[in-house]
Each structure stands twice: as structure tokens, then as C-alpha cells.
């Protein structure tokens, strides 16, 4: 990909500079699996470059704390800041807190992404793709199973204060709204807060009503896995249900390997992490960069899952 | 009244740092006697009680209980030796019922090998409670009621009934009716009379002159940490005792207290 080459070029360029670069990064939460992979991607990438030191902070889902962390970074004179924003509607506040210090938003799209000052940029994947890829593939699978006459299912949301959750669910509704897929109906949609065990209980609750269903869509793998565990515990045949999610985590891929999980979407956590570091360094050097960089999602099914087993 | 000496102290002394709260108390009590300890605030009454019940450790002096020299490491030791104390604050747990409170800390149990999880022998405790209540003349229709639902007087009676249940050898009451109304005070005094009839020795710390004159055989007066009078009830009256308390008079044997 063109953008990947640009990054590679920048990286090698920057790696040769002798001056030490200090980057301060604040991540919305440390206990999220996917974000942990991204965080590790940032750290490993920074370690591989000479003279780049990376300081990591946990915002514990607290926006006020995150803004303070950004201000602290500015006060201690870091060369660049990377922010995985807690609340996507607070972009302006973070932008202002950073002042003139170069800043990169990573993974979560702030609402001011189109009005960023020249010292700031955004690296992520477009959540419009994630939910769409997942739902669309499920739609195709259902057709292949001969259910084009009508299919009913459930949708599990992530934390609704997360733009990713909101967007992914919207994607599902948009896909179902299309002519090709409007044979699908959502019986109910509820939140399981990204959590596997909450999803287990939610799925069991849904199943207790006895309504037959053909698919389960979830905003992330953890919830999809929870749903699968609940369905298996109830003795359901996983071949009769299509289950789709997002992330392509290791646990998910192994579940896919056992044949229980049908569709997921790979979000390049490592790539986003490393990319954010490179963009930050580029901003420090005053180079011209794309202010909005979208790293693509990739659809993962049993057919190509082998490629991704070692990635997340 | 027999001649057996229940409690004797010799030179019982307690200093709190530089404060001489109790100095050289020589006290003797015979079986069947009811003795009142009186004195102004800070005179040393409560300090004296605290030393002989093991709540505190004395600075100097000796104590004999039924002829045996004793030294209590804590209030539990005193209790085990047979001294039962009824404190002004009662030491009752509001949410527990009568048998629970009576047996608190010394429950009857079985399956003792279970340690802290040994089982409570409710039947035995109930039986012993009823016997103890009867002995002190306290009537409670429903002993399974929690203490919270009882009046101050009833609670005090329960606390006193504790002494009867555990066959105490000496009962000490510290201001038992100070917080009670007239009728409840009468109830408690009735129980004290019952104890007297049963020949149980009692030390009563009280400010209430009328009560003291009604109930006890002898009055010991403390002043400024020392005993300044040892009076038989027949030999004295209210005014007289007050004079000793305030220091207007001192018995010749205790002349050093007047200093």
C-alpha cells in the first residue's frame, strides 16, 4: 500500500536522526484487549527506532484525566503527543490542551478530525468499514444457507459511549437497509459493554424466550465469543447460526478454527500503533503528512484466518 | 452474714502518670454484705472498681478474693474468678436477644472441635437464662425478643440477671440506676433486694443517697483517692455521709485522707 511505503520511508529517515525524541501517549484504557495490542505496537515500534522514548499513560476512561495528562506532557516539554481519546466528542478540548505541541489522534476518530491544526493528525481505521464488512459477509453467508426468504437475529452493542460501538451498529442497520440484505430482521439489540461474560448472560436471556434465530452480530469479538459460549452451553448447533464480530483477536481466531465462529474483521492494532508513532515523529520534523490516515480493515473468514493468527 | 471474707484489698494504689487516682485503699468485705461506695466525682470510686475487676493494672497493693491472692490480667480473668460487673453502659448488644446477651463470650456449645464454627446450644442457653431470670426475679415474657425492644430498666435487669446465671461470687454494680426513671429504678432495686436475700455479696457504686440508705449494710466513702470513712448504715444518716464526702468530716482511722 502506498501509505505503508510512505510510513516505511519516514521511519527509516527518522531512525537515522541522532536527536532523542520524546513522545507522550495517553490511551483511553489499559484493560482493553485490542488497545493493549495497539499499545504494545507503539512501544515495540518506538523501541525499534533509535533515540525515541515513549511514555505511556492510562486515562482509565476518564476524559478530564486525559486532558490533564496532555497538559502535563506539554508542561514537561515532550516533542509529540499521541492520544487515544476517551470520548470522541471532546476532540476540540484535546486539540486545545496540546497547544502547539504536535499531536496524533489514534484509533478513535475525534469529532474535530476535519478541523485539525497543521500540527495535528489522525491515524485509525474507518469504523464505517468494520461493521459493514462483518454484516455484509453474514448477509452473504445467510443467503448461501438458503435463508434469503427471511432471517432473524440479534445485535450486541459495545459501550454506547464509544463512537466505535455506535458506528459499527449503525453499519449493521445500514447493511440490513440495503435491498440485498433486507431479508434480515433484528429481533432485539442490547449492550453487553464489550464484555464476554456479559454477552454470555445476555445471550442466555435472549434464548430463554424460545424465539428461533439465525444470526448474532456483535460489535466486537469478545461479545461474539460470549454469545457462542452461551449458545453452545444451550446445546445449539453452531452450524445453524451465523455469528459475526470485529477485531480478529487471537481468542476469536482460535474459536473460528474450531468452526464455531463465522466472520470477523481484522483491525490492525499493531499497524495503527506503529503508524501513530511514525506520524508523530513526522510532525515533529515538520514534514508534510496526511492529516487523516485510514488503515484499512480486512475481512477475516475461515478461508483466510491463517494469515492473521499471529497478528493480534 | 457469715465471717467469710469475700474481698480484701491492702494498700491498693493506682497512679496515672503523675495523677494519684487511688492511694492506699484498704478494704474488706464479708459474705452476704452489701456495701456502697460513695464519693464525689474523681474521688477514686470508679478507679477502685477498675482495679479489682481487672480492667486496669494496679500500681501497687494486693487483692484477695475469698482468701486467695489474685492478680487479673484482664476483665475476662476477673469474670472467670467469679466477679461479675454491671457497668453503667450495660455492655448489651441491642440486636441480640436475652439468652444471646447473657451468654455473650461464654456461649454453651457442642461440636467444639469445629473451633470458631462450633454450634450454639440454644436449648441449654435458653434453659439457663430462664433459671437465671427467675433467680433474680426478673420476668420477661418473651426472651427471644431483641434487647432493642426493651426499656432501659428491663435492659438493666437483664444485665443484672447475668450475674445470677453465672453463679458469681461477687457482684459489682457501677451506678446501675443513674440513667433510669423512677419506676425502672424501683425494678432494679427489687432485684438487688432479691440478691441480698440470696446472700450474694454486692458492691454498689452510687450517688443516690436514698438508694444507698435503703439497700446496703455499709458505706465506704472515698475522697481524693483515699478511703476516708467506713460506716455502718445504722450508725449514720444522709447528712453525715455527705459531710464525709465533702471533707467536712473524716473518721479518725483515716486521718491521713484529710490531709
Amino acid at each position: 500500500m502506498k501509505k505503508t511505503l510512505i510510513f516505511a520511508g519516514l521511519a527509516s529517515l527518522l531512525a537515522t536522526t541522532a536527536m532523542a525524541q520524546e513522545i507522550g501517549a495517553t490511551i483511553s484504557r489499559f484493560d482493553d484487549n485490542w488497545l493493549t495490542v495497539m499499545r504494545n505496537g507503539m512501544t515495540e515500534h518506538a523501541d525499534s527506532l533509535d533515540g525515541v522514548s515513549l511514555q505511556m499513560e492510562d486515562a482509565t476512561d476518564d476524559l478530564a484525566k486525559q486532558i490533564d495528562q496532555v497538559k502535563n506532557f506539554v508542561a514537561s516539554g515532550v516533542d509529540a503527543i499521541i492520544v487515544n481519546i476517551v470520548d470522541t466528542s471532546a476532540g476540540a478540548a484535546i486539540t486545545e490542551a496540546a497547544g502547539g505541541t504536535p499531536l496524533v489522534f489514534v484509533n478513535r476518530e475525534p469529532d474535530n478530525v476535519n478541523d485539525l491544526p497543521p500540527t495535528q493528525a489522525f491515524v485509525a481505521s474507518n469504523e464505517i468499514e468494520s461493521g459493514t464488512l462483518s454484516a455484509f459477509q453474514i448477509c452473504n453467508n445467510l443467503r448461501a444457507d438458503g435463508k434469503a426468504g427471511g432471517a432473524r437475529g440479534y445485535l450486541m452493542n459495545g459501550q454506547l459511549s464509544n463512537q466505535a460501538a455506535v458506528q459499527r451498529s449503525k453499519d449493521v442497520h445500514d447493511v440490513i437497509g440495503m435491498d440485498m440484505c433486507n431479508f434480515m430482521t433484528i429481533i432485539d439489540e442490547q449492550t453487553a459493554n464489550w464484555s464476554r461474560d456479559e454477552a454470555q448472560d445476555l445471550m442466555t436471556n435472549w434464548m430463554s424466550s424460545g424465539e428461533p434465530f439465525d444470526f448474532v452480530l456483535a460489535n466486537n469479538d469478545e461479545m461474539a465469543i460470549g454469545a457462542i459460549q452461551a449458545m453452545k452451553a444451550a446445546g445449539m448447533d453452531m452450524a445453524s447460526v451465523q455469528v459475526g464480530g470485529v477485531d480478529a483477536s487471537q481468542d476469536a481466531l482460535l474459536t473460528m478454527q474450531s468452526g464455531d465462529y463465522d466472520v470477523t474483521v481484522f483491525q490492525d492494532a499493531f499497524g495503527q500503533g506503529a503508524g501513530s508513532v511514525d506520524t508523530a515523529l513526522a510532525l515533529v520534523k515538520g514534514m508534510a503528512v496526511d492529516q487523516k490516515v485510514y488503515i484499512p480493515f480486512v475481512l477475516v473468514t475461515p478461508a483466510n484466518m491463517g494469515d492473521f493468527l499471529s497478528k493480534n | 452474714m457469715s465471717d467469710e471474707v469475700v474481698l480484701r484489698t491492702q494498700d491498693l494504689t493506682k497512679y496515672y502518670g503523675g495523677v494519684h487516682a487511688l492511694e492506699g485503699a484498704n478494704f474488706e468485705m464479708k459474705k452476704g454484705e452489701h456495701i456502697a461506695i460513695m464519693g464525689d466525682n474523681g474521688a477514686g470510686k470508679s478507679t477502685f472498681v477498675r482495679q479489682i475487676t481487672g480492667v486496669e493494672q494496679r500500681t501497687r497493693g494486693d487483692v484477695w478474693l475469698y482468701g486467695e491472692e489474685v492478680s487479673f490480667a484482664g476483665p475476662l480473668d476477673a469474670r472467670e474468678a467469679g466477679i461479675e460487673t454491671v457497668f453503667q453502659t450495660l455492655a448489651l448488644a441491642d440486636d441480640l436477644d436475652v439468652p444471646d446477651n447473657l451468654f455473650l463470650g461464654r456461649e454453651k456449645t457442642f461440636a467444639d472441635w469445629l473451633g470458631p464454627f462450633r454450634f450454639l446450644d440454644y436449648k441449654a442457653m435458653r434453659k439457663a437464662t430462664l433459671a437465671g431470670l427467675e433467680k433474680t426475679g426478673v420476668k420477661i415474657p418473651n426472651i427471644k425478643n431483641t434487647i432493642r425492644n426493651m426499656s432501659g430498666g428491663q435492659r438493666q435487669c437483664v444485665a443484672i440477671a447475668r450475674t445470677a446465671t453465672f453463679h458469681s461470687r461477687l457482684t459489682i454494680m457501677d451506678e446501675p440506676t443513674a440513667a433510669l426513671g423512677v419506676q425502672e429504678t424501683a425494678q432494679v432495686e427489687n432485684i438487688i433486694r432479691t440478691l441480698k436475700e440470696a446472700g450474694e455479696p454486692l458492691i454498689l457504686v452510687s450517688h443516690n443517697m436514698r438508694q444507698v440508705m435503703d439497700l446496703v449494710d455499709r458505706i465506704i466513702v472515698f475522697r481524693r483517692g483515699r478511703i476516708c470513712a467506713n460506716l455502718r448504715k445504722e450508725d449514720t444518716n444522709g447528712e453525715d455521709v455527705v459531710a464525709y464526702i465533702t471533707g467536712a468530716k473524716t473518721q479518725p482511722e483515716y486521718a491521713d485522707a484529710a490531709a
Partner: protein
Amino acid sequence: MTDTSHGVGGLTFDKTKRSWPNEMNIFFALLIIVIIFEILGQILPYMNGQSFLFDTRGRFDTIFNEARLQIIILQVAIIGIIALGVTQVIITAGIDLSSGPLVAATAMIAMSFAQTELVNGNPNPKAIFGLWAMDLPVIVPVVVGLLFGAMIGAINGTFVAYFRIPPFIATLGMFLICRGIALWWSAGRPVSFPTESYKFIGSGMMPVVWFLSLAVIFHIILRYTVYGKHTYAIGSNEEAARMSGINVRRHKVMVYMIASMLAAFAGVVLSAKASTAQAGMGEFYELFAIAMAVIGGISLTGGRGSIIGTVLGAMVLGVIRSGFTFVKLDGSYQLMAMGGIIIAAVILDQYRQRNRA
């Protein structure tokens, strides 16, 4: 209602009638909530006359929708285990805020000793320790988890009893410490893929089996043993307990240890059920556990409370969760309803207390 009995010297006493146990009230509240959801299922147009409690589709042998009854209690069983411990702590007039993060930390630690070597025939990608820690007998992770819980509980109890730090503060500090431990343990990475025998601990209705068995055991302990009696005594009047010769400090440490061990066990069951351990698990569990006890009629000032009440409190929360999913109402309403019920439970209890005296 006074009944005067004359004893020696004209003693009179009030006889209070044997009162209606509070647990009956909670049971009735539970029935009322169930009936409300049943009615909603009938009258709400989009529900198409579905039944909350009864098996209208003829899927089960009994008239009840067994799947629903099962999930009602299954989804609160794990927090219920924590609540059994918290109940005891609150009875001593203390509080334990550290249960949630303790669940997460224990899950991470125990799961690390419960991992299986091969997943789908390939080496376990989530291995924390080397081969020596793989495929261990299930007793190992369970004991490790319980020991961790015992340690945390001992620390909590020591701070409260010996250093006289207010329980709120001590356990709040432990809340933060355990959160840190959970995050630090595997640098935020989840620990997954346990052995089959470990998974069994949390499989199917096992969490309910654990919850109800432990409830029965602790009900017996609280009501019929010396430990139980002393727990109530300390909460009711700590000074009286001390003066009666009870070793109050040592007892408190025991109570906090038991509570933390129960929370640790909840962590084991949770990770077994989900086949994973994640640092973010157990969020808000300590608050829900306290809520169960409060709805069950416990007094936060100590001396009053029962295991039966707590179990009923757990069922109330379970019914609310399932009920809201049943009528397809958003999760935010659920939280508001739970909060409302907790406050109502406390108000009703205070009203009852005032009327008794």
C-alpha cells in the same frame, strides 16, 4: 400492644408480638416485580403476548419457562457469591469495596495456573508461564486463587481491626491496589484457554450450585455457630462484645478474610465460565454485591442482616435484568430501576424499624 406481667416486686414488661420477618417482605416485593413484567409482556403491543415466567411454547415439562428461571439466577450467582461475604462484613458495621477488582486480579492469577497446553492442537498462544504451569490439576489454580483472596482479606482486616483505619478507606485503597495488580499481571493481555476441568467450575448451572451451597453453609454459620453470633454482636455493640471477652480484632480479620476468599472464588468461577480472565472484569461487582445485601434488608450500621435476605436481594436484581431484556428495554433504564429499588428498600426498612420501636 402491652401485656403486663407481674413478677417479683411489681415488675412490668412490654410484650412485643413476634414480628413478621423482613425476608417475607422482600419475597413479596420479588413476586410483585415478576407480576409486573408478566403483565407488561401481555399488554405491550410489540411483545405479542409473551409470558415472562410461564412456558407458553410448551418447551419444558413444567408450566414454568425453566430457561428463564435458570438465567434469572445464573446471571447473579457470581456476584451473589461475593454478596455472601459482603453481608458478613456489613453485619460487623464494616464495608468492603475491594471485591470487584479482587475478582479480576484473582481471575488473572488463577487462570494463569489453569491454562491448557494445546488449543486446537496448537500451542496455547496466551500462555503466561512455561510448560510447568500447563494442564495442572484443577485444585492448583483454585487453591492459588483462594490463597490470594485470603491474603488480601487478611490485609484488609488488619488495617481495619489493628490499625483502626475506617473500612471504607482501607478497602477503597485495596480496590485500587487490586486493579493495579490485575492490569500489571499480564500487561493488560487477557489470559485464556483453560483446561476442561477448570472450565467445568463455571459451566452450565455450576455458578448457581456454588452460590446456593455457599449460601446454605453461611446461613448455618451465621445463625447457629459462635462465629456467627459474635459477628452480629460486634456489629451491634462492639464495646459490649469486647467487654464480654470476644477477641474483636481477630474476629474482624477473619470476617474480612472470608469475604475476600468468597470474592476470589467468584473470580475463579467467572473466569471458568467465560474461559478467559481479563483485567477489566468485575466492574461494579462490589457495588452490586452491596446492593444485594441492602435490598435483602441489611443495616449498614451493623448488627442486622441475613443470608436469606441477601439471596432474595440477588434474585430481585436477577429478575430486573431478565425482565428488562424481556421487554426489550434499554440497559440504561435497568440501571435507573436498580438504583430506585435500592433506595426504596432502604426507606422501607427504616420505616419498618421506626414502627417497631
